[in-house]
């Protein structure tokens, strides 16, 4: 059980897929214009990640080595399409808000990465906890960015006015540059918190 909890916690902090491993950036920046959108994206993402990790882990012993990638693509792609169809049918407003980033979940590096590095090698229950942890890690980042951008850029949170009616929102944050700025700040903060003397991958 301890092992499972560690796997879960791993996805949130130590190996946070976005802030530490730097994956899945596109959807994070594009969809974080409001908390509602960010939550919706997390839902869509988690559905595919959890489904894919579970399925791949279930069949991991029967996957021939040379067929790894095609099978991963078929499984992840199927879950993505199923998720897309369900959203179109039952949550059309969210579907419109997330737009092209729904089908793009299939190329979200986090999913392919976890399926390859974890689910194809570990048990079903471990993969479940990994998927849950990674989903939460992803969710925390996108929702926090979404909250900052919505509060500063629109004066609301979850649609509710935060500041008085005289607040002139700093539109900058809702627009593309704001997204880059906010994630830059978040990474800087988390680097400071984790301040280990480790070399950041791309520098040097």
């Amino acid at each position: 059980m301890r092992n499972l909890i560690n796997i879960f916690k791993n996805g949130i902090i130590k190996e946070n897929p976005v802030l530490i491993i730097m994956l899945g950036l596109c959807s994070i920046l594009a969809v974080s214009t409001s908390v509602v959108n960010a939550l919706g994206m997390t839902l869509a993402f988690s559905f595919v990640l959890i489904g894919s990790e579970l399925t791949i882990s279930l069949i991991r012993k029967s996957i021939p080595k040379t067929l790894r990638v095609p099978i991963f693509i078929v499984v992840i792609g199927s879950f993505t399409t199923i998720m897309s169809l369900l959203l179109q049918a039952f949550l059309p407003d969210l579907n419109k808000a997330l737009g092209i980033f729904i089908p793009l979940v299939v190329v979200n590096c986090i999913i392919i990465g976890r399926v390859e590095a974890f689910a194809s090698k570990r048990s079903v229950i471990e993969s479940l906890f990994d998927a849950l942890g990674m989903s939460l890690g992803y969710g925390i980042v996108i929702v926090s960015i979404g909250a900052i951008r919505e509060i500063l850029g629109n004066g609301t949170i979850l649609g509710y006015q935060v500041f008085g009616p005289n607040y002139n929102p700093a539109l900058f944050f809702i627009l593309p540059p704001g997204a880059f700025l906010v994630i830059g700040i978040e990474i800087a903060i988390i680097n400071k918190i984790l301040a280990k003397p480790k070399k950041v991958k791309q520098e040097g």
Partner: protein
Amino acid sequence: MSELQSLMNIFISAAFAQNFVFIRFLALCSFVGMTTSMENAIGMGGAVTFVTVMASILSYVVYQFILVPLHLEYLQTIVFILTIAVFVQLVEIYLKKAVPSLYKAMGIYLPLIATNCMILAVALLNVTENYNLLEATVFSFGASIGYVLALVILAGIRERLKYVQIPSILKGYPIIFFIAAFIAVAFMGLQGIAR
């Protein structure tokens, strides 16, 4: 509007006004990862351009001649990504055997390209925007040029960053994102130029 004007419009919109990196937020992983040197940026840019244009054409053909007649449009995501992955694999195999020098230059980028979200996005947008084959080709080329532009700009800046003092809290990715934010502001100014 003449046909040529409309095509120019599509190209300029894809490359600048609706730049795929700074406005549409696509291909960010390679944007951050492949700009450590100008060489990498240009190599990746060239490879992506080739794959994007070819894969767009392929996906278009598959969509129009297989998915639509069979009413299987809802499978476009999975079919497109498989088409792209297979195409990249074939290119890799072919290059390895036929043009080893080019394989050495471009080879490392190819596996990374399969997960490049811009390529899939372009294929999907060709469908939603109802482009014909010529428009789709121009669109995918425009998108790629915009991508190359983005990479080259950032690579140029990053090469010079090495000689600059950066506060330790900003070292690494944070400063890159701040820079990207300002470039994005510049591109936003271009938004109205294509109608």
